């Protein structure tokens, strides 16, 4: 019974996501199914939160059903009005045998291994309870309180409750309000969707052998696979952000409106998951690049630029509202990042100190990142060595992203004594580079077939 409830819940989110993807202009079946759970869970969790905050609805099973049901009805009506129902009905006419038979042995084995990894992650997340430290201390604990009380008010007294936006906690809440305990399976849905969409995006430009092998590299990459069975926010964040960036890269190169919309929406939703790292700022670059290249879609570009950090801003506005309800202070008027930057500027470090810290931070990052990423980085450099000019938007994006990592660590080296004791956090923060590097390496690869 629990399994059925669980699957119905997840499939409802998928249904919402499918409608959203189709309404946003997606046509490729694989892309639609890859986007479905990501868009559905992001949209429903945000809507559920807003209905709670603005209309005072309790965060319980009845209101979740209303949110889900209302979303489905509204989106279906939109689909009817925009005449997309025929397309929707054809989405599910898919013959496995027709697509499986022509595959060569290598491709079949690659897909079987990927399916095994996704299937194993589902089994692992279904069979075992949550044991991960940060999940128990924060994400899952918060979800249990929300499901029990129908709101977050008790979190004010409990403390350590509002440090991150609540996307992953809401994934757990969706199960807990229906007395489903095995909520961790949501991470398998994210993992599977991530791989499917990654493959689908590669298939736009690459044949299925290379796309399959690249997806296998991503699926089996130790850090990615470990996080598929861990109830942390890093994998969901990596999925949303990196896939959003890939869509924006396509937008810069092709100018498609659907790519612009989906890229911006996915990157914006990533701030609904984690907002400590300001990687969303970099997404503005391809949006603006595309606008100046094609001289069109001004309104969409402006709206998406505003959307990029809106989920996080909504969350912070909610915290400010909660602050007003209680004598206890939970809202910080500025984020840790902004506070650290201000401290750094006001401290006014000398040139010698700056140079020492530049050296220390650079060595520290090399020491902790090389063991994880060396081979991948080498592969990437090798692949893009030829034709780097054609990949300018992508390279600029990657350099800016890494600058944020380096710059953030540099600033914190002045303001935090323990800045060099958080290797694990920095390595997890750099998880976004894994799919981005694999994607860029594989996308333009050419080889001679037999």
């Amino acid at each position, binding site marked *: 019974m629990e399994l059925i409830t669980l699957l119905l819940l997840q499939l409802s989110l998928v249904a919402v996501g499918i409608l959203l993807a189709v309404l946003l202009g997606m046509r490729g079946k694989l892309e639609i199914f890859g986007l479905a759970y990501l868009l559905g869970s992001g949209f429903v969790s945000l809507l559920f939160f807003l209905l709670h905050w603005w209309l005072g609805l309790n965060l319980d099973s009845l209101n979740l059903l209303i949110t889900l049901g209302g979303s489905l009805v509204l989106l279906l009506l939109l689909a009817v009005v925009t005449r997309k129902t025929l397309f929707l009905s054809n989405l599910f006419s898919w013959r496995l045998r027709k697509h499986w038979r022509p595959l060569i042995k290598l491709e079949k*084995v690659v897909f079987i291994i990927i399916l095994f990894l996704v299937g*194993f992650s589902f089994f692992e997340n279904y*069979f075992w309870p949550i044991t991960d430290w940060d999940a128990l201390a924060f994400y899952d604990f918060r979800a249990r309180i929300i499901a029990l009380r129908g709101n977050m008010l008790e979190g004010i007294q409990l403390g350590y409750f509002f440090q991150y936006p609540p996307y992953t906690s809401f994934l757990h809440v969706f199960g807990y309000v229906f007395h489903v*305990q095995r909520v961790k399976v949501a991470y398998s849905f994210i993992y599977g969707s991530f791989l499917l969409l990654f493959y689908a995006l590669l298939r736009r430009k690459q044949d299925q052998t290379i796309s399959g092998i690249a997806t296998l590299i991503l699926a*089996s990459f130790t850090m990615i696979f470990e996080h598929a069975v861990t109830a942390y926010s890093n994998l969901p964040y990596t999925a949303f952000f990196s896939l959003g960036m890939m869509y924006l890269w396509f937008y810069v190169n092709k100018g498609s409106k659907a790519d612009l919309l989906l890229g911006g929406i996915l990157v914006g939703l990533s701030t609904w998951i984690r907002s400590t790292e300001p990687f969303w700022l970099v997404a503005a670059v391809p949006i603006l690049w595309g606008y100046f290249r094609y001289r069109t879609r001004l309104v969409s570009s402006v709206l998406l630029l505003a959307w990029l950090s809106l989920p996080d801003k909504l969350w912070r506005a909610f915290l400010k509202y909660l602050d007003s309800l209680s004598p206890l202070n939970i809202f910080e008027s500025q984020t840790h990042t902004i506070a650290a930057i201000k401290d750094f500027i006001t401290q006014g470090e000398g040139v010698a100190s700056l140079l020492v810290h530049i050296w220390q931070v650079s060595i520290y990052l090399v020491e902790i990142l090389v063991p994880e990423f060396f081979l991948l980085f*080498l592969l990437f450099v090798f692949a893009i060595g030829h034709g780097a000019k054609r990949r300018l938007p992508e390279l600029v994006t990657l350099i800016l992203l890494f600058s944020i990592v380096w710059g953030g660590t540099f600033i914190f080296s002045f303001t935090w004594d323990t800045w060099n004791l958080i290797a694990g956090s920095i390595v997890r923060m750099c998880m976004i580079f894994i799919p981005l590097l694999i994607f860029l390496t594989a996308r333009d690869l050419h080889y001679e077939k037999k």
Partner: protein
Amino acid sequence: MVLSVVRRDTFRLFLVLLFFLGLLVSNFIFELEGVLSYSHHLLLRSVLALAVVSLFFSMRRVTRQKLQPVIRVGIIVLAAALFINIFLNMINVYSLGESFWGVEFCAAFVSLCTFVQTVFFTFKLFRFITLSSYFFLLPLFTLLMIYLGNDFVLGTKKYDLPRKFFLALIFLLILPNLLKSFHRAYLSIIQSYQIRHENFYDRFVFKEGGPGYYGWIKVFSNFILAQTPTSASLLVPPQAMEYKMEGNTNYFRWFLYPRRLYHLQSLEAGLESNELDYVVVSGGECESKQCVWPDFEIDQDTIKRMIFIDRETQGVTTIEGEPFLPENYQNKWGLIELR
């Protein structure tokens, strides 16, 4: 010229077999030392596997085609050995004789069971069960890549050096990652089957290494839940390496909510001592040294009773009418109920 080409292929085939044998032998040696799973060893094994694959694809296509049946047999043998290893681990073959159906079977077929046991211990077959998945998967994936690669690449002699280097990097990226992922799955499948009858939340104990390791926090929490009402307020150890779980209120609260957890600093910050109902006694993780928290005395008049849980047996004992003196309760776990 044809003869020299055939001789070249024969020489390469000899090298392939030599390197493959080297892979198996070195796997076995590292396995016995328990270091096969170390990252640098995995990478070195992968380089050896890469050498096998590279040499194989440097042979002529006709030679490679002839070897396909042999490779298929090798894959089947290794896969079968891996599945037997998984099966024997799942059924926990060491305790088979003590299991219900094991006892029944051996009572009916005494001589067969005796024979199996004799063979098992004489030939040290138990070592087969202790082999990790890496031992089988490394050569298995190597053979699989050789078998499948025929569909994909031209003979590598037609590739220039940069392309060969690129393919080598892809190989070195895929193989260790696949091995680690499959090893994770291997361990989980075995453990899942062995504890499948455990209550869902109690599986936490086994996932975290059992009551002797980090799983203890769940066992200890179950003890506290049984001994205290939901409205209880508990004084817990400080957040320190020795008490990293029970001393971290953000972590510990997941197990004990809605009970309230406080540190000593809360008393300094204004919490009244009569608001506390219990004091958690923690034996800590003190690396074979003796330690306990509280590390201060608690007067007999303040104590209603002391309840202790034995970490080995999970037996519970109650003590009344005595003060709490840390020197008497080193490495003990329990609760002090306050008046």
